[in-house]
C-alpha cells in the first residue's frame, strides 16, 4: 500500500463507521488506482491534482454521510421520547380527577405535531407512538372504543407537523 493510500485510509475516519465498514476498502483501492494512473500520466503534479480533488470530495461527502447517520440516530432517540409523551398524556387523561377531554386531545395533537416537525419522514410512526396509549388504556379497562378518536388527533397532528416542516425546509 502506497503512502497516499495509507494517508487516505486514515482520512476515512471522517466518515461514519458503518460507511467505512461497507465501502472503506473499495474506496482506498479505487483511490490507489487513481493515484497510480495519474502519477503515470502527469508525475507529481498529476498526483497532487488527485489529492486536491479527493480532499474536496471527502470534505463534501463525509459531511453528507455524517448527516445521514445523525438523522438515523435522531430517529432512534425520538421514538422512545414519543412513546413517553403518549404514555404521560394517557396517564394524566386516565387520572380519576381528570375530565378535560379537550385538553387531552390538544396535547395529543400538539405532541404528535411536534414530532412530525422534528422528523417529517415518518408521521405515521409519531401518530401511533403518541396516540395509541389513550385508546389502549380505555379499551382494555372500560371497553371505550370511542377513545380511538385520539388516533384521529394524533394522525392529524403528526401529518400537519410533517407538512409544516416540509414547507419550511423543502427536501433537496
Amino acid at each position, binding site marked *: 500500500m502506497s503512502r497516499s493510500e495509507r494517508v487516505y485510509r486514515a482520512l476515512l475516519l471522517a*466518515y461514519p463507521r458503518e*460507511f467505512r465498514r*461497507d*465501502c472503506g*476498502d*473499495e*474506496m*482506498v*483501492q*479505487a*483511490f490507489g*488506482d*487513481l493515484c497510480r*494512473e495519474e502519477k503515470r500520466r502527469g508525475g507529481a503534479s498529476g498526483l497532487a491534482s488527485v489529492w486536491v*480533488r*479527493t480532499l*474536496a*470530495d*471527502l470534505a*463534501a*461527502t*463525509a459531511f*453528507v*454521510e455524517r448527516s445521514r447517520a445523525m438523522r438515523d440516530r435522531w430517529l432512534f432517540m425520538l421514538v422512545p421520547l414519543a412513546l413517553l409523551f403518549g404514555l404521560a398524556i394517557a396517564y394524566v387523561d386516565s387520572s380519576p380527577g381528570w375530565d378535560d377531554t379537550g385538553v387531552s386531545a390538544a396535547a395529543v395533537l400538539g405532541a404528535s405535531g411536534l414530532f412530525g416537525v422534528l422528523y417529517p419522514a415518518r408521521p405515521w410512526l409519531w401518530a401511533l407512538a403518541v396516540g395509541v396509549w389513550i385508546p389502549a388504556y380505555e379499551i382494555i379497562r372500560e371497553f371505550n372504543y370511542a377513545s380511538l378518536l385520539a388516533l384521529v388527533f394524533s394522525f392529524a397532528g403528526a401529518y400537519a407537523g410533517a407538512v409544516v416542516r416540509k414547507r419550511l425546509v423543502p427536501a433537496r
Partner: protein
Amino acid sequence: MERKSKAGQVEEPRDLLPLRPAVFHILLALADEERHGYGIMREVEGRTGGQTRLGPGTLYGSIKRMLADGLIEESDERPDPAMDDQRRRYYRITEFGRRVAGAEAERLSGLVETARARKVLRGRGSSVPEGV
C-alpha cells in the same frame, strides 16, 4: 418486474426522479457492461471528456444508496479472473435501474426540447445561442 419501497408501496421509476447527476452517470456507465468502482470512475471521466470526475466518496456513497434502491446489484461474475484483482466488487444495472435511467433520459430530453423551443439552444450539440 415491479419494485417495492421499504414501506411496501410499488415504486415507479418516476418516483426516483430527478436523479442526482452522479447516479445517472453511474447508471450510464453500467448500462453496457459490469464494472468495478474504479472502472466506473474511468468510464465517466472518459465519456465526459474529463468534465465529470467522480471522487471515491461521491462514487461509493452513490453506489451504497443505489444498491439499497435496487438500481444496481453486485455481480458475482468476473470478466476475467486471471486478469483482475479478486477483491474488487463488480456492479451491474438492474432491470429497474435501466427503467429509471430511461425515465431520467426522457426527462432530460424533454428539458432540452423546451430549451430548443425557447431558442436557448439552437441546433444539435451546440450550447451557444446563435448570434453570441
